[in-house]
């Protein structure tokens, strides 16, 4: 596009019916043809992305060939299970509930996390809740490092900047959640000879908002090319129930409520869609500022943040590195 052209949300408009049909055809070709699997396993979180993937899979393979896995744990939001049931049930998928709290406890997820939290907030203990947050991106030049917010049983709040060791230890322990869920998804995939469908959208995939070998692992990622506003558009077309479409995008990972915006993206998904699209087509900040409701300086801040996250996502997106690339050694034999 011309560097001077204005970027607006209209450029992200999709024909939802056509997009859904294309993805469904692609799913059948890849899962049946290339992967030789009979259906799909989808981890259904109660959020918009997994609801859309579950709906696409139900239409591609039939609802009885989709295993909709609901995997709440001790820190899940109270509404998570009901929304997950709604997402699966609305597409005719029989939900399978696997509470992963015991698995996470056995792995030491909560214990390891809490030990790390106490290095920053020694009084943290039973009855306390916590989350990790980033400082404001807009209007500030401050370097973006994570802080811990903890809330005691009486509602008192403590905010502390984390040491690198404490931050990494909390992150590593918390990542058990995504990896445990993926382990169960593959358990069902192996049992049923299904493929695992991942649920990242374009923002998450591009910006590395997932756990390597956790929610980042999958056999197919049918909406990884779609911006978040496009996922919402598809959700509407696919009759994803309104309470799921209205839910604020959440990490649903820490015990205190935490939006994706405050944990990672720092701007709304509409703003990030616009800025990422504009960045992809190399539009100057001024071209997207008005549509995003930001001044040009803030767009440049978002651009820098996008680039830093893309740098970090490089490691996440890399497949295992081999000493000698083996090329087609693992391709299935051609049919006789």
């Amino acid at each position, binding site marked *: 596009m011309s560097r001077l052209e204005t970027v607006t949300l209209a450029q992200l408009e999709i024909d939802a019916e056509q997009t859904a049909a294309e993805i469904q055809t692609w799913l059948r070709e890849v899962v049946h043809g290339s992967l030789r699997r009979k259906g799909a396993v989808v981890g259904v979180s109660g959020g918009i992305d997994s609801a859309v993937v579950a709906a696409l899979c139900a239409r591609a393979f039939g609802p009885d060939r989709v295993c909709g896995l609901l995997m709440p744990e001790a820190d899940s939001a109270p509404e998570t299970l009901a929304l997950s049931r709604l997402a699966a049930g609305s597409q005719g998928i029989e939900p399978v509930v696997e509470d992963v709290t015991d698995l996470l406890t056995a792995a030491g997820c909560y214990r390891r996390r809490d030990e790390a939290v106490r*290095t920053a907030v020694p009084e943290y203990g039973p009855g306390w809740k916590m989350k990790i947050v980033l400082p404001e991106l807009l209007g500030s030049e401050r370097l973006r490092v994570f802080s811990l917010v903890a809330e005691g049983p009486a509602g008192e709040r403590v905010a502390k900047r984390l040491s690198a060791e404490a931050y990494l230890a909390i992150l590593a322990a918390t990542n058990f959640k995504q990896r445990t869920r993926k382990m169960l998804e593959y358990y069902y995939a192996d049992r049923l000879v299904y493929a695992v469908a991942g649920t990242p959208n374009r923002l998450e995939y591009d910006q590395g908002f997932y756990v390597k070998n956790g929610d980042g692992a999958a056999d197919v990622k049918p909406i990884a090319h779609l911006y978040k506003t496009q996922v919402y558009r598809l959700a509407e077309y696919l009759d994803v129930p309104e309470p799921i479409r209205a839910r604020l995008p959440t990490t649903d990972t820490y015990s205190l409520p935490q939006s994706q915006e405050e*944990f990672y993206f720092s701007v709304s998904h509409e703003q990030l869609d616009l800025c990422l699209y504009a960045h992809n087509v190399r539009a100057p900040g001024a071209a997207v500022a008005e549509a995003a409701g930001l001044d040009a300086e803030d767009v440049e801040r978002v651009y820098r943040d996008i680039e830093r996250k893309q740098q970090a996502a490089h490691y996440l997106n890399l497949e295992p590195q081999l000493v000698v690339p083996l090329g087609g050694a693992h391709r299935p034999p051609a049919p006789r």
Partner: protein
Amino acid sequence: MSAEAAPAPRGSDRPASLHGPVGPIPTGPLPILAPMLDTVSLEREVRRFLAENFPLGENADTLAGNDALLEAGVIDSTGVLELVGFLESRFGIVVSDEELLPENLDSIDRIVGYLESKLGTS
């Protein structure tokens, strides 16, 4: 969800407490430096820290003093926390949230200048 691509532990001086509770940032055998270091010594300390703790920091000798560390991918947001931990433990200073600015921390020259102002040696 995940946090920003948490990098693998780097360098040879990672905490010895991988099998137990996380402790404060290890300072190893190095004592807090007396606040009388000159610019050359401060720069040497910073370059050594980058070389020992960050993969791209191995080229710390060839990094220009004004190279942007974040932009060059030498450090990321976790690296900033590691850097702050190093400055606080090695030089006995406190880096406030308000001082977490590129103008203080995003190049070797800026880190040295910041240290000099905090240590009163500039």
